[in-house]
């Protein structure tokens, strides 16, 4: 058993990353995730064989991650919405070069400079690629500080396993929240050997090179097909979600992150007034838990997707439901957090 500590979400990610062996962090300050950058500075600058660099920009920070990841070390960057937009160039390169790394997005209200309050409006950007070209990140959506810790550690393992960038898609609320967390002992898992591709100098071997391009379109198509294969494997093997009260539910809420946490209160309060609500909470947003949603839509004919966006995950839920049930939506944006009473009022509209 590890020790229990009271930690702020953003700092808990930092501690989890370091314990997962990530000793190379490159970042740029932005609210509401700066505590993570500061935490990494405080810890890594005192460590040996470690580096913390406050980059000149998000573009530079993600490129530093690209360089560090190419040498085989675990590395990370973090930001919030507008900063994540800037990182898209590097993320696309890293995905194409098939390098493992972790990117944290503590989302805030958008678009533009938006607000500094929590948001979930970067769902499309996170799950559909974000930058140019056909690629996906492994996207993990924590809904508690404990889960931030666990998923951060998982993110490094998944990134290494699939040689693909992974993203922790949180929101400003979860980053700022303080909760008790435990850093559990983790089982050693078998991860692929990096020796074949890392850049460490070519002593005793042929040179290695990492180039995220190929001017021969047929070769470039091959590379695309190869990374798609990886995404298919992710869909097959790594889908995670939490379900609550799916049997006999009158309506299913689909929500992730902090909104799912609010939805759980809705379920309890609804029960008191005789309404039976279920919850599907995707933990992996890519790969998306479409199968469980599809299966549930055979049994329950009303869905309500709740997001801090104007309806982004909604599209994936609709695709999974595929017309078999009614899919409704409730969203608040710009940094506004939906309350449990608003959600319950909304539910009542559909259960008349």
């Amino acid at each position: 058993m590890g020790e229990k500590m009271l930690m702020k979400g953003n700092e808990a990610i930092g501690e989890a990353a370091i314990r997962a062996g990530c000793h190379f962090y490159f970042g740029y300050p932005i609210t509401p995730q700066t505590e993570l950058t500061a935490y990494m500075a405080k810890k890594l600058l005192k460590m040996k064989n470690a580096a913390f660099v406050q980059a000149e920009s998000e573009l530079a920070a993600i490129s530093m991650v690209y360089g560090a990841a190419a040498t085989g070390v675990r590395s990370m960057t973090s930001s919030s919405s507008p900063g994540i937009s800037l990182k898209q160039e590097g993320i696309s390169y890293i995905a194409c070069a098939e390098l493992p790394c972790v990117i944290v997005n503590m989302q805030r209200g958008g678009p533009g400079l938006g607000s500094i309050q929590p948001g979930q409006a970067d769902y499309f950007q996170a799950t559909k690629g974000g930058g140019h070209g056909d690629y996906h990140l492994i996207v993990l959506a924590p809904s508690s500080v404990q889960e931030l810790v666990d998923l951060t550690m998982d993110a490094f393992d998944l990134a290494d396993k699939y040689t693909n960038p992974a993203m922790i898609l949180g929101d400003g609320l979860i980053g700022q929240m303080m909760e008790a967390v435990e850093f559990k002992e983790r089982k050693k898992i078998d991860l692929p050997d990096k020796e074949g591709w890392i850049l460490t100098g070519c002593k005793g071997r042929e040179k290695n090179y990492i180039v995220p391009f190929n001017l021969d379109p047929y070769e470039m198509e091959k590379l695309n097909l190869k990374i798609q294969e990886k995404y298919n494997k992710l869909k097959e093997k790594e889908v995670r979600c939490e379900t609550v009260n799916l049997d006999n539910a009158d309506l299913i809420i689909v929500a992730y992150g902090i909104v799912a946490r609010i939805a759980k209160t809705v379920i309890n309060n609804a029960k008191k007034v005789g309404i039976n609500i279920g919850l599907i909470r995707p933990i992996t947003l890519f790969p998306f838990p479409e199968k469980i949603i599809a299966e549930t839509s055979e049994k329950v004919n009303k869905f309500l997707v709740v997001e801090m966006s104007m309806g982004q995950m909604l599209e994936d839920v609709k695709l999974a439901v595929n017309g078999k049930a009614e899919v409704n939506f409730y969203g608040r944006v710009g940094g506004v957090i939906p309350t449990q009473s608003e959600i319950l009022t909304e539910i009542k509209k559909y259960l008349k």
Partner: protein
Amino acid sequence: MKKVFESPKSLTKDPFTYCPGCHHGIAHRLVAEALDEFGVREKTIGVCPVGCSVFAYVFFNCDMICAAHGRAPAVATGIKRAKPDSIVFTYQGDGDLASIGTAEIVHTANRGENITVIFINNAIYGMTGGQMAPTTLVGQVTQTSPYGRDPKTMGYPIKVAEMLSTLKGVAYISRVALSKPAYILKAKKAIRKAFQTQIEGKGFSLVEVLSTCPTNWGLSPIEANKWLEENMIPYYPLGEFKTPEEVS
């Protein structure tokens, strides 16, 4: 019989694909010779840019990575911080380093990152077919300055070596040319000094290499060398701008 001249080990056997008269081949060779002479090929990681020399990864016989346009110094920073014992260099053109990558080169230099930058200044964008670069001379005709570079709306050519020399974190900076053998010998010395600076852990080093682009200048290779000497060198004076005492 004693072999007096051969291909450096730090170059592959692949023939250069650069245009006739282009100086990339000479610059590649000088870098490769320096890596050979210091015996560091097997611990070197090179970062190639976006532009004509994106293909440098083919020609250098050491570990290589291709950065996004302008970001080579940031990628090099990530590599060097993760592997401080390796020798890390970037090889960048003028559009890459002095336009889209200005922030990266300035801050990498300012942090005094212990890397070496080979900066090829040929006053034009080569790969995309001859557009104005930040280092294009006043009055110089390019696809995007078809009436000549007009400083009133297009600004003046940036003197990278001079600009970066003002930064305290920088250890070694010089500007060289490759248009005649005497210059090439000096360029070789400068490139050696730059790598020596890094090997000795003295900090950031950069060599600005004035180069030709006969194809996009619309000149023959010989005319291009002449144009470089008559037009570029007067504006971009050759020499050392900063040296750590022990290296000079």
